[in-house]
């Protein structure tokens, strides 16, 4: 199974219609990857679907870059017993 990082990048690329190879961990979703308001919400929704987890809305939307998203999702998966 792909790593959390790979899956996060795949989802991000799909939602934002980007080439996964161009996405790096330090990239900020909004300024570097061009995520608009609704797309940020869609990203969170797609991460939930991909990992089978429920994220706190405010916490999830306060995550700014790809690396932090990987860390946050890993933490939530551990808390909720989801497979990573």
């Amino acid at each position: 199974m792909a790593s959390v990082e790979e899956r996060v990048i795949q989802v991000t690329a799909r939602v934002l219609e980007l080439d996964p190879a161009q996405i790096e961990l330090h990239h900020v979703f909004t300024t570097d990857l061009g995520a608009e308001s609704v797309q940020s919400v869609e990203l969170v929704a797609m991460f939930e679907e991909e990992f089978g987890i429920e994220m706190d809305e405010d916490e999830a939307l306060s995550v700014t870059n790809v690396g932090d998203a990987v860390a946050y999702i890993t933490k939530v998966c551990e808390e909720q017993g989801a497979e990573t």
Partner: protein
Amino acid sequence: MADHEKFPLVDATEPNLIEDTFDYDLPPLIKFDGPLVEYIDGKPIEFSAADFLARDFFVTDTTFRDGQQARPPYTVDQMVHIYDLLSKLSGPNGVVRQTEFFLYTKNDRDTLDRCRELGHAFPECTGWIRAVKGDFRLVKEAGLKETGMLTSSSDYHIFQKQKFKSRKECMDSYCEVVDAAFEAGVRPRCHLEDITRADIRGFVLPFVERLMRMSEQVPEELSAKVRLCDTMGFGLSYPGTELPRSIPKLIYLLNKEIGVPSSRLEWHGHNDFHKVHVNTMTAWLYGCDAANATLFGYGERTGNPPLESAIMEYIALRGDLCGIRTEVITELAEYMQSIGFPIPENYPFVGRHFNTTRAGIHAGGLRQDERIYNIFDTTKVLNRPPRVALTDKTGADGVALWVNEFFGLKGDDRISKIKCHKVARWVMDQYEKEGRMTSISDQELEEKVKELMPDYWDKYCNA
């Protein structure tokens, strides 16, 4: 922190929402922290807010008279229904104290009879006639205790319209009719038309002084009332303005110099300069107990003081509903619209979008705490929950707010905007991909919620 700052920050970790004033259950309260001062004849005169609040001020209605002059006639049934709703709105304390009726046609008289048959204590039914002695027959036959009568006060009316040869001839004529009212046992309410364009010291004060002298000869319940009619909306609320436009000075002279008690003074405004509500409230404040108004401000030309706004002001001043059933304002608006009465969408308190927000950032605020962008608890006070209108500016916050309101979810039961993302995407695509230029209707969104959030639909709509 530097100790020389004139206004040092008062740091806080908890918000101060100033709830003593912004009690969310009521319109924001109006509080005074000192007297009002108006210079009259060069001397400062203090008007005490405490004295004002101690008075029994109230609202009177002219929906069926001035309000009807500006539109095709209501049917008898329509007027009876509106009267019934006005009574419900008014409540047992008679905040809407009186309403006036024409008496000239059979329809007018049938309406009056049917309204009185309802047996409501308030609003009391009064009449409206020309300043013609013979018209008192109509008032007597109708069994009314009080009637308004035209006693126009400006030279525009005295000379240009009514063609009197002199002010004296005019005043004598008016006083003859007032005498006829007394003889008929009917209380006259003298409507001083166009008072804000009249010669106050040359005609208005002498006429009202004479009315007061005449009233001394009759029982108190017949003593003449005075309605100050700002016929063209020229009245000004600002301190320091001159007569005849100054509302504070006009009322002071009649109330304190001539001695007309506040209980016999009434203000009737028009909205030609967008001042109608504030002018009417100013009249309350400076000494008129009665604020004359029409439902939704409908009246001649630009209209009259909106009755529902006067009601809101009353509650804000009293700090209590005082028996008023505010939700009837919404019922009245719905009824008026059902009989073809147009109400603009942005019209305060009753317009379709009076508490609708369109900007996503405002919708976000509403979603967190509706007090941020809702004037008061419009759900409780007017049975109108705050709304969002969906456009390209609304964002996921607005969509989530709409969805939660649609399902009637509050607090922890609310659905997060993450769960609404498909609907939010559809909304955005309408504008970004489909080139839409109009807002999205509730019906369209309902269909999309059903399609894109089927689990929630089944849970909350099919339960």
